[in-house]
Structure formats: C-alpha cells, structure tokens
C-alpha cells in the first residue's frame, strides 16, 4: 500500500501542499486492480499447470496449488513430440528472423541510399502491400509450396512468411535519417557499398536491428495459420500448432494440456521480458512513431 502511495506522489500529479491527492491514490489502486485482473488468465494457467489433475478439477477455487508439482511438464515432454516441435519452431523462427532482417536491411539500404531504375516502383509496391491481407493468399501459397514439393518441410513453412514489408520500411526510414557526411567520409576512405552497409550504417544503431529481429522472431514463433496448413506430419509441426494436438491426445487431462501451453508460450514470454525495451521500440518504430 505504501508503495502505491509513493508511486503516486512521485508521479507529480497536481496536489495541494500538505495533502495527499485522494484521486491520485484511488487511480493508482484502480490501476493495480485492473492489471491483476488482466494478468489473471496467465497466472491461472501457471497455477493450474502446477496442480495435479485431480486438484485442477476439484470443487471450489484454489488460487494456488496445494502441492506444486512439475509432473505435468515432465509428462508432456515425455509423452508428446513437444521437444521435436520446439526444435522445428526454433529452426523456422530463427531462419525467418535471419532472412527477413538480412533481406530487409539490404533492400532498405538500396532504396534509401542508391539511385537505380525501378526504385520508386519498388517502394510504392512495398507501401501498397502493407494494406493487402496476406492471409487471403493461403490458397495460392499452398498451391505454390505443394508445387515445389515443400509441404511438410521447414523451408515450406519459412518461404511464405518472409514477406515482411514493415521491416523494409523501418530500415529505409532509419537509413534516410543518417546524415550524408558519414557516407561521404567512408567513401573517401575507399569503402564500397557493402562495407558501407555492414561496417558503417548497421553498426551505427544495432538497437534497431535487435528490435526488429526480436519482433520478427516473436511473430514467426507465434504464426499459426500457415504452419497449420503446410504441415500434416506430426513430426514436422511447430510448437504453436503442435500443442493443439496435445489437447486431442490427452483429452480431459486439463493440467497437462495447460502445462503444454505454458511451455509453448515460454520462449516468447522470456524473449519479451529480457528485451522489453527493444520490443517497445520495435512496435513504435513499425507504427512510425518516435518512441
């Protein structure tokens, strides 16, 4: 409680000298309550995953597990393909992240710094594709990927997910903002365009690349529709698609299903908690706001 009051005081809300601003205190308390309600489903999933199956479906409300146990997690790891799904998700997500960031940096640099025929046409196509719903293309992606015999492969999952106009737009705007002096100085020293991009421009702000990589990774890990269509073979599934299979196999073992869900969400949750600032930066950048 004291913490809450202190936070409010520190926030510098208008208040008359000598009085605690009651409105501000109430607002802070309300904020904490709303945040707890908002977070409750995640908390409840964590709590359920540590319960035994009997306790999970017992009458009444037990907020915390009476005897916390990791048995559900062990059971899911041992009785499903979760470890393989983890591997598949890691391969596809890392592949997508690396390729998207690399291709976007190169393209963004060329559009921003070089003059070449078709430059504006390319830029307008990228801006236009921003509006077009990629999900409507699932049918044709399926036909194309099936045509080159890449269904049920990592590459087949990766390819259609490489279309990422936003990353190019962010890079282009970042490169646009770098003063020409840097470029001229480096050119004087005899640097070519590739050295300029990888030794001068990108190192100038690795933060942007990190931010874009993290948000691309999270997006790739979380993608559901395309991996769900492209993969029928259970051994090739990503975690995001696979855990719905756990539900089918385990049936009414709720605590185990939830333990599987927690494990599927863990890598992205950790990525977010470790790189909070970068995630925020990536989101404000991609919306075109200076954070």
């Amino acid at each position, binding site marked *: 409680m004291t913490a809450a009051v202190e936070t409010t005081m520190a926030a510098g809300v208008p208040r008359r000298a000598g009085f605690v601003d009651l409105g501000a205190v109430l607002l802070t308390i309300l904020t904490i309550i709303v945040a707890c309600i908002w977070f409750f489903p995640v908390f409840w999933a964590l709590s359920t995953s540590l319960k035994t199956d009997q306790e999970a479906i017992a009458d009444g409300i037990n907020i915390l597990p009476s005897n916390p146990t990791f048995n559900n997690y062990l059971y899911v790891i041992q009785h499903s393909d979760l470890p393989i799904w983890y591997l598949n998700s890691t391969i596809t997500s890392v592949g997508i992240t690396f390729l998207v960031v690399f291709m976007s940096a*190169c393209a963004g640099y060329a559009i921003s710094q070089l003059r070449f025929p078709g*430059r504006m046409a390319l830029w307008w196509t990228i801006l236009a594709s921003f509006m077009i719903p990629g999900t409507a293309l*699932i*049918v044709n992606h399926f036909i194309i990927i099936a045509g080159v015999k890449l269904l049920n492969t990592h590459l087949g999952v990766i390819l259609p997910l490489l279309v990422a106009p936003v990353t190019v737009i962010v890079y282009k705007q970042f490169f646009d903002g770098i003063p020409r002096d840097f470029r001229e100085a480096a050119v004087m020293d005899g640097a070519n365009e590739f050295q300029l991009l990888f030794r001068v421009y990108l190192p100038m702000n690795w933060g942007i690349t990190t931010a874009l990589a993290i948000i691309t990774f999270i997006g790739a890990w979380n993608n559901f529709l395309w991996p769900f269509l492209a993969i029928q073979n259970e051994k090739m599934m990503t975690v995001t698609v696979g855990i719905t299979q756990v539900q089918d196999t385990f049936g009414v073992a709720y605590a185990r299903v939830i333990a599987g869900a*927690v494990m599927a969400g863990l890598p992205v949750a950790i990525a977010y908690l470790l790189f909070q600032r970068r995630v925020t930066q990536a989101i404000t950048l991609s919306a075109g706001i200076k954070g």
Partner: protein
Amino acid sequence: MLKSKRNEALVAAVLVAPFVAIYGWMFVYPTIQMVILSLQKAPLIVSAEGQSSFVGLDNYMRLFKDPIFYTSIKNTAYFLLLTVIPGTAMALAIALMVTRLKGWGQSLILSMFFLPYVLPITVVYLIWDWMMNFQFGIAQHLIAFFTGKPVNVWRAIPWFMPMVALITIWWTNGFSILLFLAALRNIPKEVYEAAQLDGATRWQLFWRVTFPLIWPVTVLCLTIQLILQMKIFDQVYLFSQGGRTQVTMVMVQYIFESAFIKNDGGYAATVAVAMFVVVIAFSVLNFQALRAGGSR
C-alpha cells in the same frame, strides 16, 4: 571521384535481389495467380479425376448468391464492431493509467498488460478454453453469478462472438497500449503545467489537452486494428472446432473451408479476391473518414 551510375544500379540490383525474388514469388505471383484461379473451376489438389477448367465469372455469380459468404461478412463486421473501437478505448484507458506510474512500478504493471500480446494464439486459446470450461472453468463462477447457471460459451451462439472479441482485445491490446504510451510521453510537460496553473481539473486536462494531442495516434490505432481484425481467423477457428462453424463463419475461415475442406480451390480464390476488395476499400474509407474527423 563519382562512381558511375551503372555501377550504382548494379550494386542496388544485388542488394534488392533477395527481397525482390521472395516478394515476387511469395506475394506478387500468388496475388495474380489468385485472380486467375478465381476464374476457374479447380480442385485444390489436382488429381486424375479433378482437372481445372476455365469458367469465366461463374464463381463470382455463385458468390453473390451464397448465403454463407454473406454470413461470413456479417460475422466479420460484427467482430470488428466488438473489437476495434472498444479495444482502442480500453487501450487508451490503460495507457493513461500506466503513464502516471514511475520506475519499476510502471515496468511491472506494463508487462502485466503487455504479456498476452507476445503469446501464440494457440496458447491464448488453451488458457481461455480452460478458464471457460463448461464443467471446471473458473470463469463459470462469474458467469453463473450473473446468469444463474453455467454457460457453454463456445456452443451458445449469442455468447460466441462477444467472448472471442473479449479474448482478442485481451490478446492484442498491448500493441495499442504501447503506441498510446509513446504518444503520451511525447506531450511536453509544459503543456500540462500551463493548464494546471489555469486551474484545470484532471477531467478537463484529458479532454482539452491530452485527447486532442493524441488524436493522430488514436486514428493510427483504429486503422491498424481495423485492418488487423478484418483478417480474423485463428481464434474463431480454434474456438468453434467441433461446433456448427457455419453460423460463426468469418471471411478468412470461409476461404480456408472452401479450399482445404471442400477442396474447391477456384471458389476459395474467389472468396479471397472478394476479401481483398473489401479490405482495401475499408482501409481507404477508414483512412479518409478518420482524417476528415481529425481535421475538424
């Protein structure tokens, strides 16, 4: 000193090549192919008995008379109504609450609000399916309190869309919250101080100072949400599994069903083209309308 124009174009070609190749193969080509496919009677999986043939506008004629197609548009519109404005309003309210806090307290509260955004949809689905479980779900206590009895929300049609909308707001709101927070931080402190000296109340401060200043970001959030939520599929598909999907059908889901369940690739492409048109028209209209609203 100056490098030749040709050399520059050559370097540029090398740099944009990977991107252009992927873009052409995975975006431009399928878009064109989709339009061509929509003029054909074509199975998704071409086999000996099922060959594709050109049928002109037959698919489109069928589309205009297809009640399920209209249902899918109606449900998508209903979903937009339930998510776009309520979600953005809620995000603004949360951002206003979070921006008052300082230091680690703010980080903690913000991560509690933001965390759902980074979770995969299947995780969100499993968590909420469990919360709402007809027999054992903890939310049923709340539902029973208000309605007198537990409700199987995924099978009760009037409950379905509002529940999916609520969960979608819970899941995706972190994005808008962050945008609003960034906008609120960009408002100079002096503006508030001046208004406070004039004796403005908290309520007046918001409506007279804050809201006009963050209106452009509000427009941005509404636009992004509209375009994003129009593509709704995952949640509706997952929660309606095993139920009567036709009643709760949304646009992308109808593309999916036509192609992958009925093996009717041509018709699925027709639905996709229709969706393209609707989404683009909506984005343009929305942008124009909100810009007009903002200039007042």
